């Protein structure tokens, strides 16, 4: 009896009681729906009637139909390009704020995040205004005499989607990389300089490996969600910039074929998860090699 009483007033039970509610909420609204959508992919739907007998048809269609395969590959390509571009642009920015921000670090971080308090839909729409045939960019370049003909490769294709998403996800890369850079003990860098390392060498041997957690966090937090964006491709992507999420949305809404939509969604999630895990493993191996 005493043991039971002790357990109830112990740290362990207090912690579990506190976290029970949020955990239950997530189980109910996240784990259960994800499981259901996984099973839904194995069912079939004929207009409004759902047939609950097991069938692999939807997954076979999702993986063999050339249209879905092309969309999936293009989406992965766009997501990878967006991730790479965002991280490459955000790293120097985060580095500048962390190492040269002086006492204005907070101001810089504030400045970097303000644009993202504008409505997401309007930001995407305004990129359409910037990149269009008679858009801001083309009129400006024309006025400056840089171009004779308006540039057409920047709207209604994959490039436009990449530019817009690279803009949309910037703070999600800048902030984690900044936090990782801030944690680096500056005396390591001084030690490296004292021992004769040049700026580039000490960056490659100390700063970059130690800030890798931020880079990896940024990459994952951008790569996985961008695969599910259907607003940007729809508004600026044209026909050649559509992504898998647009197809998922169509299957759930207009086409009324939720099981096929579910199998596409589960496949997309599966593929990005596997790519992310491989990426994590490669990064761990690279860091271990550096460390030894």
């Amino acid at each position: 009896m005493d043991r039971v009483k002790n357990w109830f007033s112990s740290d362990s039970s207090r912690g579990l009681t506190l976290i029970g509610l949020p955990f239950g909420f997530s189980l109910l609204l996240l784990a259960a729906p994800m499981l259901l959508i996984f099973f839904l992919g194995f069912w079939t739907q004929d207009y409004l009637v759902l047939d609950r007998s097991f069938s692999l048809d939807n997954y076979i269609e999702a993986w063999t139909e050339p249209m879905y395969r092309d969309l999936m590959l293009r989406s992965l390509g766009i997501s990878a390009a967006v991730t790479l571009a965002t991280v490459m642009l955000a790293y120097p920015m985060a580095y500048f704020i962390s190492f040269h921000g002086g006492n204005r670090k907070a101001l810089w971080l504030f400045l970097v995040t303000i644009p993202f308090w504008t409505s997401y839909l309007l930001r995407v729409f305004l990129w359409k205004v910037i990149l269009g045939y008679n858009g801001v960019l083309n009129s400006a370049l024309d006025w400056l005499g840089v171009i004779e003909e308006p540039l057409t490769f920047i709207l209604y294709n994959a490039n436009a989607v990449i530019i817009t998403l690279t803009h949309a996800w910037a703070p999600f890369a800048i902030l984690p990389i900044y936090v990782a850079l801030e944690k680096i003990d500056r005396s390591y860098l001084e030690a490296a300089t004292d021992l004769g390392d040049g700026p580039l060498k000490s960056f490659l041997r100390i700063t970059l490996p130690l800030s890798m957690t931020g880079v990896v966090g940024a990459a994952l937090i951008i790569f996985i969600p961008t695969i599910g964006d259907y607003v940007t491709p729809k508004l600026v992507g044209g026909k050649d910039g559509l992504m898998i999420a647009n197809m998922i949305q169509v299957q759930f809404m207009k086409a009324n074929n939720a099981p096929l939509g579910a199998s596409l969604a589960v496949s997309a999630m599966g593929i990005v998860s596997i790519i992310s895990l491989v990426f994590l493993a490669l990064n761990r191996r690279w860091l271990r090699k550096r460390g030894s």
Partner: protein
Amino acid sequence: MKSNKNTLKVFAYSYLIFLYAPVLLLPIFAFNDSTIISFPLNSFTFKWFAGLTQETYLQESLKNSLFVAISTSILSTCLGILASRASSRYEFFGKKSILSFLILPLFLPEIIIGVALLVVLMQLGLPLSLWTVILGHTLVCTPFSIAILNSAFANMDMSLEEASLDLGETRFGTFKRVIFPMVSPGLIASLLIGFTISLDEFIIAFFLTGTETTLPVYIWGQLRFPAKLPGVMALGFLMLLLSLILLLLVEFFRRRMNRTTDDQVNVQFGNLFKHDKKRTRDSKKNHS
């Protein structure tokens, strides 16, 4: 080294221009007297703002959005308090896996969350309403609340809490009078982040919304009609101003509250905790 710094500075400013490009266009077209959203500009006008007052559908969806955003921010902050208090103060079985599960929505495409919730609701035969949007938004906002509140709880000086318990205050009283004032800046930040994310969230709302729409769903509908666009620009500009005011308020409260809690501690505990306070301040310095 000097030239390195200057190159970085030039890059930082050009990157800022890229980040601000769409935002700067918003006021330009909100005040431009032309239905076409492009250059060259016409004359200056307020008529798009005046026109907003006549859109009853817009006002409906604004009201809906405020209701959703306020409910979401309260719910996700409550869940965040429970989770981050548990994680910062107690050790228990499966702590790490439970916490990573709670922040998982941060790493999931929103369309997956929206679609999955939609399927569950349809299977259960529940009708879509603003409450279904609130549930979806709470799921997405809770990880942000946990992240903010975790640092608030972790930065708290535990000796104050222990002192309160030792001096005979109950657990609830300690929470109310000692812990709550110390984490309140974090609470306000968490409420505000939840509010702003929910107010702007479109993808999940689009799937889970019923007959009553939220503001982003309304804007999405308007984007198809060229004649409506200048009004949408005016609306977007007002929303941006609102967010900026909220952000500045948070900053103001955060600073003021930091000062008041410090003063209160000084008055109430006199010199007793001077040594401890110095220690926490130093450890805070090391943290940031």
